C-alpha cells in the first residue's frame, strides 16, 4: 500500500490546492488567532514581574519638595518613597536614602537606611501598591480583549477551513458522478450497485472527515504547538531548547502506540463488520438455522467473533491506558518538575523572573491537548487513505465523455442489422449473425423465451454495448459513427420494469427536458390514457412519486413511462413489454396506448403477450441467439412452427383462467 500512497496523497493535495487562496487566508487568520491566545501568559508575566513583584524593587526615600514634577510616589510614615522604575536613574539625587521592602512569613517589612526596619500593615502594603492597581486592571482588560479577539479569529478560521474541506469534497463527488456517466454500461453489469453508491457517498465521506480533521486538528494543533514554542523561546531560550526534546519524544511514543494499536484496532473494526454481516445474514436465514437446529452452533460462532473483538478491545484499552493521554500527561508532569528544578536551582545562585516561571508552567500546560488531538486523528487518517484510493481507482476507469447533442435532423428511422453477432462474455455468443431491416414507420416485434437474445438486440441498438461482428445502420450510417448522445437523441425506450424516479408525476414524464412543458406532459398523459388516474391523485400532476414509484400500480407506472416516450417524440421507439400481471381494465388502456405510441415511428416491441403484436409488420422469432422464423402474424401461424405453438400455449393459458 505504501507504494500507492504517495500518488493518493498527491491527488488529495491537488484537490486542496484548488482552494489555495481560501486556505492561505484562513491560515493567516489562524496564526493571528494563535498569537492572540498565546499573548495572555506574557501579559500575566508582566503583571507579576512589573507590578506584583515590583514592591520588592529598590525604593528611594525622598523629601516631597525635592521630587521632580510628574514622578509617582508613595507617602509612608511622614516620608515619601519613590520606586526605582518610576524615575530615571539620572534624576535621582545622590543624597536619597535607599530602602527595600521584603516579606517574611506573611508579614511585609520595610527597611530603610534612615529609619531602620518597620513592619507594614496591610493598608501600608496597599499604599505601596497604589500606582500598580490601574495598570494591572488595564492589563487584565487586555487579556480579556485578546481572548475575545482570539475567539473571533478562531471562529472565522475554523469556519473557513471546514467549509473549504466541504467544498473540496463536493467537487470530488461531482467528479465521481461525471465519471459514472462516462462509464460503459458493461461496468455496471459487473459492479454491484451498493458498491458504487458506497464510492460516491461513503468513501468521499471518509475523505471529507480526513480534510475536516486535517483542517480542524492538524492545522490548528500544529499551529498552537509552534506558537507555544515560539513564546517559550522568547521567554527563556535555554529552557525552551530543553523542552523541545518533548516533540521527538511524543512523536516516538505516537509511532510506537500506533504501531501496536493498529493491529488491535483493525481486528476490532473487522470483527464488528463481521458481526454485522453475520447478524444481517442470520436474520435472513433464521428459519433454516432453527429448522436445522443450528442455533447453538450459530451463537457459538457469533460469540467467538464477539469475544475476539472484546479481547482486542481490552488490549487496545491497555495500550491506550499505557501510552495514550496518560503518558502524555505523565511526561508533562515530569517536565513541570524539571521546570521547577530549573528555576529553583537558578534562584539559589542568582535571581529569577517569577513571571517567566509562571508563563512557562502556563504555556507547557497548553501543549498536551493539541498533541492528544493529533494522536487521535492519525488513527483515522489511515482509513481515509484507503477510501481515497478506491475513489481514485473509480475515477481512473476508462469511459467515454458525454458529448453535447448536435442538432441533427430527426432521422426517418430506417434501421438495419447486418450480420450482427454479440457476446457479453468472450466466446459465449448470445446473438449469432442477426440480420433484419426495419423501414421507417414499421413495427417490428421480437419474440422468444428468456435468454433468446431479444434484450441484447435492444442493448446494441441503443449503443449500450458494441457488436462483436457485423454492423448496425440507421438511415444508412453505421451507429459507431455517431456519438452515443446523438445516437440516442431520437430514440425512446420503455423498459419492462418501468423505472420511475423520485420526484413527481410531471417530472417522470419530462425528466429534466425543459422543452417539454406542462402542456406537453398533460397531452402525452392524455394520449396514453393516463389522464383519468393522474387527475384522481390528490395532487394531480404534482403528485409525489416515491422511490421506484412504489405507491403506483404496475400498470400506472407503465402508462407513465409510455407518456414519457411519447413526450420525447422519438423517431425510433424501443418497447420492452411488461411481464408483470396487469388487471384487464388497465390492460385495455395499455393496448390502446401502444397504438398511439407506435404511430409515425419505427417501433421495436419485445413482446411477451403475443396478442399485442398481431398487427406488427414483422415478427422475428428468436431462439438461442438466432432468428428462426420471420414474417407477420398470419404467415407465421400458417407455418405452424414455434410461433404457432407459443400462440396456442398462451391461448390455452387465457382459457384455463390461471396465473
Amino acid at each position, binding site marked *: 500500500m505504501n507504494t500507492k500512497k504517495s500518488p493518493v496523497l498527491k491527488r488529495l493535495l491537488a484537490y486542496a490546492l484548488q482552494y489555495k487562496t481560501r486556505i492561505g487566508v484562513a491560515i493567516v487568520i489562524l496564526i493571528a488567532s494563535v498569537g492572540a491566545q498565546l499573548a495572555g501568559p506574557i501579559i500575566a508575566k508582566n503583571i507579576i514581574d512589573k507590578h506584583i513583584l515590583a514592591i520588592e524593587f529598590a525604593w528611594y526615600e525622598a523629601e516631597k519638595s525635592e521630587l521632580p514634577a510628574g514622578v509617582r510616589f508613595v507617602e509612608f510614615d511622614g516620608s515619601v518613597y519613590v520606586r526605582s522604575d518610576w524615575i530615571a536613574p539620572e534624576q535621582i539625587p545622590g543624597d536619597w536614602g535607599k530602602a527595600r521592602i521584603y516579606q517574611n512569613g506573611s508579614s511585609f517589612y520595610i527597611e530603610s537606611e534612615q529609619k531602620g526596619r518597620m513592619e507594614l500593615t496591610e493598608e501600608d502594603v496597599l499604599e505601596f*501598591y497604589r500606582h500598580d492597581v490601574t495598570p494591572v486592571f488595564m492589563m487584565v482588560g487586555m487579556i480579556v480583549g485578546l481572548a475575545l479577539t482570539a475567539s473571533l479569529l478562531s471562529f472565522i478560521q475554523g469556519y473557513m477551513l471546514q467549509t473549504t474541506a466541504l467544498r473540496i469534497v463536493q467537487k470530488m463527488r461531482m467528479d465521481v458522478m461525471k465519471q459514472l*456517466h462516462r462509464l460503459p454500461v458493461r461496468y*455496471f453489469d459487473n459492479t454491484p450497485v451498493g458498491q458504487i453508491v458506497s464510492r460516491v457517498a461513503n468513501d468521499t465521506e471518509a475523505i471529507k472527515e480526513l480534510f475536516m480533521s486535517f483542517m480542524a486538528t492538524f492545522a490548528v494543533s500544529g499551529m498552537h504547538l509552534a506558537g507555544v514554542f515560539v513564546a517559550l523561546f522568547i521567554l527563556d531560550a535555554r529552557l525552551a531548547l530543553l523542552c523541545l526534546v518533548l516533540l521527538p519524544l511524543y512523536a516516538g511514543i505516537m509511532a510506537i502506540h500506533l504501531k501496536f494499536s493498529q493491529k488491535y484496532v483493525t481486528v476490532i473494526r473487522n470483527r464488528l463488520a463481521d458481526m454485522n*454481516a453475520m447478524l444481517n445474514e442470520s436474520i435472513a436465514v433464521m428459519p433454516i438455522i432453527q429448522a436445522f437446529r443450528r442455533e447453538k452452533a450459530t451463537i457459538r460462532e*457469533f460469540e467467538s467473533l464477539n469475544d475476539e473483538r472484546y479481547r482486542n478491545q481490552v488490549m487496545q484499552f491497555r495500550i491506550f491506558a499505557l501510552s495514550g493521554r496518560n503518558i502524555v500527561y505523565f511526561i508533562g*508532569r515530569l517536565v513541570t518538575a524539571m521546570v521547577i528544578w530549573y528555576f529553583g536551582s537558578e*534562584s539559589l545562585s542568582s535571581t529569577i523572573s517569577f513571571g517567566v516561571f509562571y508563563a512557562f508552567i502556563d504555556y507547557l500546560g497548553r501543549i498536551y491537548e493539541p498533541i492528544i488531538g493529533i494522536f487521535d486523528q492519525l488513527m483515522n487518517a489511515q482509513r481515509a487513505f484507503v477510501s481515497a484510493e478506491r475513489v481514485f481507482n473509480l475515477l481512473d476507469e476508462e469511459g467515454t465523455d458525454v458529448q453535447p447533442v448536435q442538432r441533427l435532423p430527426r432521422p426517418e428511422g430506417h434501421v438495419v442489422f447486418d450480420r450482427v453477432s454479440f457476446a457479453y462474455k468472450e466466446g459465449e455468443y448470445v446473438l449469432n449473425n442477426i440480420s433484419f431491416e426495419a423501414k421507417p414507420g414499421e413495427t417490428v416485434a421480437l419474440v422468444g423465451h428468456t435468454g433468446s437474445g431479444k434484450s441484447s438486440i435492444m442493448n446494441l441498438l441503443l449503443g449500450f454495448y458494441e457488436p462483436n461482428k457485423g454492423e448496425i445502420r440507421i438511415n444508412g450510417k453505421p451507429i459507431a459513427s455517431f456519438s452515443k448522445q446523438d445516437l440516442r437523441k431520437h430514440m425512446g425506450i420503455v423498459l419492462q420494469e418501468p423505472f420511475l424516479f423520485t420526484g413527481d408525476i410531471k417530472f417522470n414524464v419530462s425528466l429534466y427536458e425543459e422543452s417539454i412543458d406542462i402542456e406537453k406532459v398533460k397531452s402525452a398523459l392524455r394520449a396514453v390514457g393516463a389522464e383519468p388516474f393522474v387527475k384522481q391523485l390528490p395532487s394531480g400532476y404534482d403528485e409525489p412519486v416515491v422511490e421506484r414509484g412504489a405507491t403506483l400500480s404496475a400498470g400506472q407506472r407503465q402508462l407513465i413511462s409510455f407518456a414519457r416516450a411519447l413526450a420525447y417524440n422519438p423517431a425510433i421507439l424501443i418497447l420492452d413489454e411488461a411481464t408483470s400481471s396487469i388487471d384487464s381494465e388497465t390492460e385495455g388502456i395499455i393496448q390502446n396506448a401502444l397504438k398511439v405510441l407506435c404511430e409515425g415511428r419505427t417501433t421495436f416491441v419485445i413482446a411477451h403477450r403475443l396478442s399485442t403484436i398481431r398487427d406488427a409488420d414483422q415478427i422475428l422469432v428468436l431462439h438461442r441467439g438466432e432468428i428462426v422464423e420471420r414474417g407477420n402474424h398470419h404467415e407465421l401461424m400458417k407455418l405452424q412452427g414455434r410461433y404457432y405453438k407459443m400462440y396456442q400455449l398462451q391461448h390455452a393459458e387465457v382459457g384455463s383462467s390461471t396465473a
Partner: protein
Amino acid sequence: MSFISKLRWFFRQRWGYYLATVLLMCATSFLNTIPPRMIGDVIDQIRIGSLTGESLMKTIALLIGLAVSMYLMIYIWNNTLFGSSVLLEKELRNRLFRHLTWMPPSFYHRNRTGDLMALATNDILAISNTAGFGVLTLVNTVVGTTIVVVSMVAFISFKLMVAALLPLPLLALAINKLGKAMRHRFMIAQQSFGRMNDHVLESISGLRVLRSYVQEEKDIEAFDRVTKDVMEKNIGVAYINALFQPAISTIVGLSFSIGIGYGSYLVFHSEITLGELVTFNIYLGLLIWPMIAFGEFINILQRGSASVDRLDQNLRQTSDVADAVQPVPVAVPTSIEMDRFTFRYPGTNIDVLKGVSFRLERGETLGIVGRTGSGKSTLLKQLLRQYPLEPGRLKISGQPIEQIAIDQVRSWIGYVPQEHMLLSKTIRENIALGKPDASAEELERVIKLAALETDISQMKDGLETVIGEHGVMLSGGQKQRIAIARALLANPEILILDDSLSAVDARTENAILKNIREYREGRTTLIATHRLSAVSHAHWILVLDDGAVLEEGTHEQLLQKGGWYKQQYERQQLEESLLGDEQGDV
C-alpha cells in the same frame, strides 16, 4: 434512572471494578491538586529566600513520585472502567443475538432488519459509552470539581474562588446547548446525505433510461444541486462546530482574567501571596475539562438511557410458540395427520388454511399443489413449529405436535425452503449445515443425489467455493440444489421440499426426484410445487385453493376427475414439449 435499574445485573456483577475505578479516580483527582500547590510554595520560598537545595530536591522527588503514582493509578482505572464498558458491550450483543436465534418468524415481521441492526450497533455502543466514558465524566466532574474547589477555599481564598468560578457553569451550559444544536443540524445534514445516496442509487438504477433520453448532463446538474445541498447542510454543522472552541476559550479566558485580576488585587491587599495566586490559576486550569465533560455527560446519559430502553423493550419480547412443558416422548414419526386444520398468521384476521385434513403414513409422499398464495408453504411450515397453532389438530404418531418437544420435532425434519437461504460461506460448509460431522462419503453421496457433481467439479475451488457477494455467483438452480443436498445430508425422517426446484430444469428435477425416491425409501416426504410432474409419484396429492382443499387423490384419480389438476397438467405438458430443449438453469 432507568439506565442503572435496567443494567442492574451488570453493575451487580462488576461492582468491585466500579468501586475500584471510583476510588482510584478520587485519589488521582486529589493527587492532581498537590503539584500546583508545590509550585506556589516554591515561588513563595524563593521570594522569602527560604528555599534550600535540599528542600528543592525533596520537592522534585515528591513531584516525580506523584507523577509515577498517578500514572499507575490512571492506568489501572482506565483498564477497570473501560474494561467494564467493553464487557458490557460484549454481553449485550451476545444477549441480543441469543435472543434473536430463539425468536419465531412473527418477531421478524414485527421488527425490521434495519431496526435490529441499529439496535446491535448504535444502541449497544451508546450504552457501552455511557457505562464507560459517561461514568468517567460524571466522576471526574463531581469529584474533580469538589476537590479543586475545596483546595481553592482551604488553601487560597473563598472570595477568589467564587469570583473566578462565576463564568464556568456557562461553559457546561454552552457545551450542552452547542452539543444539542450540533446534533440537530447533524441530523438534517444526514438526511441531506441520505437524499444524495438515493440520487446516486437512482442514477445507477435508472442509468439506461437516463442514457436513452440523453439526460446525462441534466442528471449531473441535478446532482450538483443535491451535493451543494449536502455541502450547505454540513456548513451549518461546521458553523456550530467552529463555535465550540471560541466559546470555550472566551469563557475560560474570562475566568482566568478574573483569577489573575482579582487575584492581584488580593495580593495588593496582602490577602494572598504571589505563590498562592499562581497555584490558584493552575487550579482553574484543572476545572476546565470537568466543566466541558459535564456538558457532554448530560447528552451521553440521555442517549444511553434511550438506547437501554429500546434494547430492553426488544429483549422483553417473547416467542409466541411455546414449547411443551411436559413433552410426550415420541421415538419415530410413524404418521403425520391433519384434522380440519385451520390457521391464520399472528396479528391477522384472515384464515390462510381452512379445514385441511390428510393422513400420511411413514414412508409415504404427499404432494401439495395449487396456485401462488393458495397456502402450500403455510401448510408445510406448520411442521416446523414456527407459529402458534390450534391444539390437537396436527398430530405426529398420533400425538398432538404441540405436546412434543420442538427440538425433537425439528430433529426429524429436513427443510428445503422456497428461497434457498444459503450462507455466504463455502459450498461444503453450507451443505454440512445439515450434519456438521458428516463424513466425506456422506457428503459425496448427497452431492450426487442433488445432481451437483458436475457443477462443483467445474468450479475452480470445488467444494471450497465461497457463495455470495465476494464469492462466485451461483445460478438459482445451483443454489436450490445445494439447499437440497443440505437437507438430504441430515438424512431426515421427514423431508420438506417447498417449491424448491423451481429454477431447475425439468430433466434435472426429474432426476433429483427419482434419486430422492430411491434414497428415501421408507421415509416420509412432503413436496409443494408448481410443476405437477414433480408430484405424479406421490401417494396422495392435495390441490389447495385459497387455503382449502379443492381436489385430492392420487395422480391418476385427479386426472380422471378432470378438474383444475388435469387442466394444469396438460398445459404444462404442452409447455414442456416447447421449451424442453432450451430451458437450462435460470
